[in-house]
């Protein structure tokens, strides 16, 4: 208690707040970009646009992950659900020629059900989130492979006589993959921003979001205050599943195919983004604003390393180091 007070006196609050700590990491990375600009590449908007595009799918997963982590949980299944919905999206639009809105609704429903079921297991049967979502991760991957027959679902459609015929790419793929605002922004980035906005509204403007924070902060106190803990957990994991489906649709559109092997280890990138932003894995604290900073930090880091032609080996090593550094920076509280 006492040293908390003295620390407050030593440093003004705006320096020690989670937001400024997270921003500090982002600024450090950004300054690195200004220094190692790869012959001016970093000064071009196109670089930033491509960074945003590259990070969007991960960022969409990070939105759902933020909600889940705030309830003191974790969701390992987002990458697999992404693959499953990517496969389903490609299958329904390319092969079955469903109208795009029906395909989208279907994929969102599948994602939401996958996540919601994890949440049900966690709330109703008190299975640890790690285990429940690990099971979902394996299961959803299996379904993706089963539905796709282990093949990438692409525009090469097998005919009854065994030959392949190429069909045209559905319009919805082109639309999601397009650049807008005079080519200055990609649609997937707009989708990412929409996901952040939706999660932000849920977390800060709706009762359910308040309950998520309370459950993560002290589940027992929440139960005794009449908070409907199980439905809220189903909602949090369901939203994570829903966003995984959004990410799956984007991924399929970007790759022009549904790959059952897609999204492997994406959950780890999403968790890293949330954690670098400063949302605590203990739950009860965190915000979408912090996650946005985390998304940008990782996005810029990867981009800067890639425009400077740093090999993947060193890129991975550096990313590991930066994650630890960013978390340590937020630690001494």
């Amino acid at each position: 208690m006492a040293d908390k007070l003295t620390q407050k006196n030593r440093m003004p609050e705006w320096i020690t707040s989670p937001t400024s700590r997270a921003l500090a990491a982002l600024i450090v990375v950004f300054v690195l970009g200004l220094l190692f600009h790869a012959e001016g590449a970093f000064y071009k908007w196109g670089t930033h646009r491509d960074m945003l595009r590259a990070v969007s799918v991960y960022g969409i997963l990070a939105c759902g992950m933020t909600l889940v982590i705030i309830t003191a949980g974790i969701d390992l299944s987002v990458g697999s659900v992404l693959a499953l919905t990517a496969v389903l999206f490609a299958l329904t639009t390319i092969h079955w020629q469903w109208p795009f809105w029906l395909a989208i609704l279907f994929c969102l429903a599948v994602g939401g059900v996958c996540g919601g079921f994890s949440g049900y297991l966690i709330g109703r049967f008190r299975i640890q989130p790690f285990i429940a979502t690990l099971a979902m991760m394996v299961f959803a991957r299996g379904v993706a492979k089963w539905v796709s027959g282990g093949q990438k679902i692409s525009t090469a459609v097998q005919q009854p006589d065994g030959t392949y015929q190429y069909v045209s790419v559905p319009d919805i793929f082109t639309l999601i993959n397009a650049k807008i605002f005079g080519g200055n922004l990609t649609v997937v980035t707009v989708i990412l921003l929409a996901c952040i906005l939706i999660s932000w509204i849920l977390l800060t403007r709706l009762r359910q979001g308040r309950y998520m924070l309370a459950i993560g902060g002290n589940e027992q106190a929440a139960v005794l205050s009449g908070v409907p803990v199980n439905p809220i957990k189903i909602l949090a994991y369901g939203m994570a599943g829903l966003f995984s489906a959004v990410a799956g649709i984007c991924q399929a559109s970007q790759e022009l195919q549904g790959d059952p092997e897609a999204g492997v280890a994406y959950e780890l990138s999403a968790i890293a983004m949330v954690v670098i932003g400063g949302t605590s894995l203990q739950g009860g604290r965190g915000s979408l604003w912090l996650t946005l900073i985390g998304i940008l930090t990782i996005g810029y880091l990867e981009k800067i390393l890639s425009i400077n032609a740093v090999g993947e080996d060193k890129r991975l090593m550096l990313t590991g180091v930066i994650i630890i550094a960013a978390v340590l920076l937020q630690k001494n509280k």
Partner: protein
Amino acid sequence: MTMLLTMKDIYKSFGPVRVLEDVRFDLRPSEVHILAGENGAGKSTLMKILGGVYPDYSGTIELGQKPVRFKSVQDSAGGGISIIYQELSLVGSLSVYENIFLGRERHRFSWIERTGMKNEARRLLAELGLCMDVETAVEDLPIGQQQMVEIAKALSYQAHVIVMDEPTSALTEPEVKKLFEIIARLKQKGCGIVYISHKMEEIYQIADRITVLRDGRYIGTETAENLPADKLIHWMVGRQLNQQFPRHQSRLGDVRLDVSNLTVAGEAGNPIPLVDGVSLHVRAGEIVGLAGLQGSGNSQLLHGLFGTFGKRVSGSLKIDGRPVPITHPAGSIQRGLALLTNDRKSTGLVLGRDIVENASLACLPKFSPAGWLRPKAEKRAVSQTLQQLRLKAESLSQPVESLSGGNQQKVVLAKWIQTDPRVLLLDEPTRGVDVGAKQEIYELMNQWTQAGIAIILITSEMPELLAMSDRILVMHRGHITAEFESGQATQETILSAALGETTKGMRNTWRTN
């Protein structure tokens, strides 16, 4: 005779609060020495000092004639002291012998010698007259046998001072008998036993000497023959009642809360119910005090009727004459119940969140029609309530963990008052709260009863209980053992009922089982 253990001039404070003042205690070989006192008298603190849990005390401890100072639990165990806490410190998934030798496994070139340890474990258990499979996992044993394993573990440390903190609270009658046999054997071996108990019958069954603490001070030591029950009780509670309490009795209305035959089953596998067929009623505007020492089940009774235990509860509940099911806390809150728990940090508050969020948590639907939060309305209502409670805080958006105990408690009270409760269940509402805030909480209780709210009050502070309650029920081992009208009760009569003494003239529903 040389003493096994002598503790003298023991002082101990937690921050500014002095919990032990000039306390002494000694222990002879081959004796059972009862350490008696109400909740919060300082018994557990004294034993934790002996056990090395609190190394920062002042005073002297001598083992034999040798002065010692325990800096850690290991120090104390090395000195031959073994403390068996109420919550047993065994690793459930490990076997009996593994638990006995935990942390001191016998090994040769770090290769564990299982056979040797098993044999030694069997020998230790045989010494206690016990025969059990040493390879069974401890979690598969009934509580009574687990306790025997703890005692065997103590013996394996060559402990000659064995402290038992309410060892019988979870035991069945035959298990208690077995425990007492073992205590007799330990006495024969020359061990000294410090025994903390809240059960009168037990105390006189095994005591050689009794030492009484009250409010952190030493009251006296006497042999059991020379300290009859009434004198013991007088020692435990014989304080002057000079505090001013502002209870204004309000006009009593109709019966608000009517509980009949409420039973809370024990934890999984334990046949002893926490609350056993309790019936009670509270009128509108009435404060009913629910007295009871640790383990009496009074706190569990409140949780039971609030729905915390869900399906472990049986019995029926009426609010304002209408039968209501006991389901879960959310349902209870809707039906007008509110429970202030006795541990605000672990069950009352979300410490990392701010004042407003905590104060509105139990009635959030009120401030979020169709799910959308109305932060302004929420803040206005909360700040209004908190003004009535005279909360002192820099801003309503500061996290509750930065508030003092008294102000934290006011946030919890605000949370419950905003649900417009018909029945308030208050479990230790003034615990860890400064004097000023205590007075304010008493005033609030008066206001609330005047508004017709029915209150059940649990408090381990006897003067508070006597002054604030319009009626007092006393619990012991899950039963109500006595009922007093306002003014009839004294500290002595309450305590003796809480210790399980049966006295003439009291309504007595306690039966031995």
